């Protein structure tokens, strides 16, 4: 999970910590703020903040899918990549 985050949200979380020894680059964190639970959008809750959002994300919520050995995620992009690879 930490070494190879897959989901854009997880990537954002892992990329939110400046390191003490690594290279100094401008980090972005996760843009925007948490979604309003009273006005949930159609499709993915995370779509407004996602850097890799594409058409299916605005329509339906994806199911939890295995994207690696014992590593599961809910993300259209990861599912599409897995189907391409298969």
């Amino acid at each position, binding site marked *: 999970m*930490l*070494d190879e985050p897959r989901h854009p949200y997880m990537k*954002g*979380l*892992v990329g*939110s*910590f*400046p*390191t*003490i*020894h690594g290279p*100094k680059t*401008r*980090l*972005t*964190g*996760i*843009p925007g*703020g*948490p979604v309003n639970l009273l006005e949930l959008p159609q499709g993915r809750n995370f779509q407004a903040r996602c850097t890799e959002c594409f058409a299916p994300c605005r329509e339906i919520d994806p199911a939890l899918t295995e994207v690696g050995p014992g590593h599961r995620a809910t993300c259209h992009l990861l599912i599409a990549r897995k189907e391409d690879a298969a």
Partner: protein
Amino acid sequence: MTAMQEIQVENLVIDFPTGGGLFRREHIRAANCVSLTLRAGEALAIVGESGSGKSTCARAIARISAPSSGKIVVDGEDILASTTKIRQRDYAAKVQMIFQDPFGSLNSVHTIRHRVARPVKLHHPGPSGARVEAHVLATLERVGLAPAAQTAAKYPYELSGGQRQRVAIARALAVGARFILADEPISMLDVSIRLGILNLMEDMKQDGIGFMYITHDIATARYFAERTAVMYVGHMVEWGESDSVTQTPRHPYTQLLIDAIPQPGRRSTAGNAPKKRADIPVRGPDSVGCPFAGRCPKVTETCRTTLPPVTQLEKGHYVRCHLH
């Protein structure tokens, strides 16, 4: 008052009375011999545990509380001297604080508009209501709170922690702050929001604003600040360029702080961490020796009796330790 370029703090000492009788007052020394320089367009990070005097120094520089002795020199003029021509209110407009808790620092019964406009009206009386309003909205846009007109009409409870902290920054910017003393501005925010605030402050540096960035987190100090100073029980124990201090820490306390940072990919090293040998000491005006002597893994007899002098290691990197 011209645009401030530099605030130099020289030998700041801050004592707080803790009791005692009529003839013998007892004091604790919250800051001792603190000397530092804040420059416009640059950030100085102050790192240390709770109780090391970081906030106390910031409050003295903001003139919220008065130091027991020492100088605060602004562009060559000592503002604590009775001869100073710099008025307290003019100074306050230029040197603003941001506090740790964005839920406590904004009054919940006022709108954001009121919160940002009020200090503008106090410090710069004169402009019409419409001009103040335009200024408030422009400032809210600048800190990333668009659409500003909608944000201005909201109450603090309608905003998230990160947004509130942006309001606190807007409040400082709106009165024309030249220096911002940020007292742990991101420690109460979600990790994903923290970088947004740090990057906003980074952009403000480009506009010539100087920062004193108080933090527990030495990694964000390196990320944001050009220079870093490490404090322990009221003393600056090591300071210099942030990269120099974090990559080649020389004071045992700085080394301990850097070893204490958990890193993704590095499993717990609790087993090899040095045992905490004592609590943070309480120092008074009569205390002797190095403040860190009780916890230092490399303590010598001299450390317990004499306060170490300041040694320059390489250009601009200083340490207060008998080992160097």
